[in-house]
């Protein structure tokens, strides 16, 4: 990573059309992009971290309410979405692989597959949101109403709080998915036009990092929101 030796003399590849003027060579440019994305992802970790902190605090304070509210989520849909996202991570990884090896058709195919899976995720999420709307579980003043009896030791406002955190977390996650789809569209366009090659494919790689990160967030959200407390309530 030391740039001190990457020097001014980009030699052969400094002529690559994708080289930006302020970089010396493609290697430096790729490294900068990669590093930049990682630093950005660390920023994202801290961003979600604040929410995880709030979640942890209140789950510890209101365990019964959180278990009850969590059991009200649709486990099947959550699990399907987890699978969908993991598959999309695989297709993304393969898209990177075919960009690295320079196979245009496979690249395009896997980018499209990733996008379709991402869209599927969002559609399922939207259905879940709609269900919550129908069940009056939208956490906003005047919209939240817990139907049926309140479980033992549970106050309604703590159920609300679970849903507040649920919507904040999954909403921000979905927003990241949507941004990811935007990036994918851009990638698709360039992959389609054969822009990426074994020499130049940093954008695919970097977008891959982003996509996998969004997957990782979900890998944590799924058990935290859907699973913890299942064993005591057993669904609804």
């Amino acid at each position, binding site marked *: *990573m030391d740039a001190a030796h990457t020097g001014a003399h980009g030699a052969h590849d400094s002529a690559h059309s994708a080289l930006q003027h302020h970089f010396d060579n493609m*290697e430096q440019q*790729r*490294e900068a992009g*990669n*590093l930049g994305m*990682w*630093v950005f*992802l*660390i920023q994202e*970790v*801290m961003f979600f*971290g*604040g929410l*995880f*902190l709030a979640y*942890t*605090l209140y789950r*510890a304070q209101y365990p019964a309410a959180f278990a009850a509210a969590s059991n009200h989520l649709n*486990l099947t849909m959550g*699990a399907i979405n*987890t*699978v969908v996202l*993991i*598959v999309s*991570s*695989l297709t*993304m*990884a*393969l898209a990177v*692989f075919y960009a*690295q*090896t320079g196979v245009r058709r496979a690249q395009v195919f896997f980018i499209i597959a990733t996008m379709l899976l991402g869209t599927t995720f969002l559609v399922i999420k939207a259905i879940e949101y709609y269900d919550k709307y129908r069940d009056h579980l939208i956490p906003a003043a005047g919209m939240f109403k817990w139907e049926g009896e309140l479980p033992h030791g549970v106050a309604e406002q703590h159920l609300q709080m679970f849903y507040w955190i649920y919507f904040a977390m999954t909403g921000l996650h979905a927003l990241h998915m949507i941004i990811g789809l935007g990036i994918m569209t851009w990638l698709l366009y360039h992959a389609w036009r054969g822009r990426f090659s074994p020499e130049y494919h940093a954008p695919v*790689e970097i977008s*891959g*990092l982003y996509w*996998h*990160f969004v*997957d*990782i967030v979900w*890998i*944590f959200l*799924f*058990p*935290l929101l859907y*699973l*913890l407390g*299942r*064993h*005591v309530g*057993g669904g609804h």
Partner: protein
Amino acid sequence: MSEHIVSRRVYFVIFGALMVGTLLTVWVANKDLDNVLFHGANTVIALTIAVIKATLVVLYFMHVRYSSRLIWVIVVSGFFWIGIMFALTFSDYATRPPLTTEQPPARNERLK
């Protein structure tokens, strides 16, 4: 410094492991392990599986296993900082006079 191309086989193996992890975590979530193992076992297991899955994604899908030390440092520091945030915040909440304990009460004759 030039990049390492991860083979497709590795991707599929990791993918398989992630799917197994997902099935496992769902399956185990419905078992009541509080009485089988220890209190809170479900939480611990669910989070352990999640951490393993995330680690696999980071190491292989995100190529960190093959990346420079700098990237390792960045990844580790991200989680370390989250750790700071949790540890010090809970150093407050956890040291407020505890109310709830798992021990049987010292006296509960009041209950009669």
